[in-house]
């Protein structure tokens, strides 16, 4: 567990420390050998696991709780499908569920690994709550209508599925937790539909977050 210290209240332009003392984290920038604050908030110093130096950052009322970084495995729900892009909304980052954010940050996502891809999908025209069953790495079939649809299926290791999660209690939250706890994709059947999700194609993807980009490619 990284040790975190909270310091003083800072405003943009506050000089925090020497550049060689601490590393610049989110909310700070380096200029002429010093680290300055960019946001209005509380200064936070935490240990960096990889390097020995501490990271200094600013916690502002506007910073979201968890922000996906490059290389993170995220769980996302697909919203728009085009011939060029597929847009999704990121729901979980690793094992933690993301709180709904007002600000929109754009990320490039990739499913270019065996463990990444579609986790939960419903067939077109099928009733809500009936999830398709994967029959190969690139196809899924609806158990009710027996329709086959092409999907890039994520590879789930059976021992990673948490059986305790496969209950009907609070279906939408459980489903997310199970998927996130694994880090991989997991297939679950939900008893009831969640009123939170719009009745579109309820597809869940686990994918790796790419570098931050200002727009969708």
């Amino acid at each position, binding site marked *: 567990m990284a040790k975190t210290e909270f310091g003083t209240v800072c405003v943009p332009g506050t000089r925090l420390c020497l550049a060689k003392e601490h590393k610049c984290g989110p909310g700070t920038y380096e200029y002429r050998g010093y680290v300055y604050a960019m946001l209005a908030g509380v200064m936070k110093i935490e240990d960096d696991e990889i390097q020995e130096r501490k990271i200094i950052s600013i916690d502002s009322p506007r910073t979201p709780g968890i922000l996906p970084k490059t290389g993170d495995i995220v769980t996302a729900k697909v919203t728009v499908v085009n011939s060029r892009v597929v847009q999704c909304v990121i729901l979980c980052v690793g094992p933690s569920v993301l709180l709904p954010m007002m*600000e929109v940050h754009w990320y490039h996502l990739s499913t270019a690994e065996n463990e990444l891809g579609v986790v939960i999908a419903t067939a077109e025209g099928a009733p809500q709550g009936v999830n398709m069953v994967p029959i190969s790495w690139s196809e899924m079939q609806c158990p009710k209508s027996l329709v086959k649809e092409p999907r890039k299926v994520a590879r789930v290791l059976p021992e990673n599925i948490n059986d305790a999660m496969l209950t009907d209690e609070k279906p939408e939250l459980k489903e997310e937790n199970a998927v996130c706890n694994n880090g991989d994709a997991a297939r679950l059947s939900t008893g009831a539909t969640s009123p939170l999700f719009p009745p579109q194609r309820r597809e869940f993807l686990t994918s790796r977050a790419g570098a931050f980009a200002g727009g969708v490619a």
Partner: protein
Amino acid sequence: MPGPDLLSSQGLRLDGRRPNELRRIRCKLGVFTQPDGSAYLEQGNTKVLAAVYGPHQASKSKSSAEAVVVNCQYSMATFSTGERKNRPRGDRKSQEMSLHLRQALTAAIKTELYPRSQIDVYVEVLQADGGAYCASVNAACLALIDAGVPLKAYVCACTASVAWRDSTTPLVDVGHVEEAAGGVCLTVACLPSSGNIALLEMSHRLHVDYFDVVLSRAMQGCRDIEVVLDRAVREHLAEGWMEEDITAV
């Protein structure tokens, strides 16, 4: 000496202030819930509202691959001046003000952090009593901080003029009566902590020998305004933040 009588024999200006006295500044952050950041600022009788929409995807025509595009709109309400204004926005003066506002804010925002994005800043002048541009820059700075847009430092703007009574006395924070009387008006938008000037503009003519005096008076005015804005930001942080929010992380 040519020029209007901006200083009385008692050393008081046309509105009763001392030469180095700023008008009273009252400001508040977070006045609206819809925009990402907002602020209301009063500088004497000049009242200004600013609203900021934080970085979002830029339209294809405006987007830049290296940095964020700061989109400013300066608008004066029809009831803001003595004579009712016909065009609140889109007229030449408002467009020029929008460009100046953009110049000042782009100098303060860390633009390289959000390529292919745009930030929208809307400023509405509710009452213009001189120094409307300065009040706009100050209000926009507060609104940007409220929106959580990363800034290098505070950006403040101030005007200065000069009076010719006995000696050349620089006057800070020029009001509408002094502007209308025909005195020279130097507008400075700068980052007071580093002393970098973002925008410098002057009306009428001023002899180069007196320029330094007037400029340094305006820069000092910017530093004094920064103190006021800083206090408002800290108060806003203190009231908006509970102790449990910090320890819960």
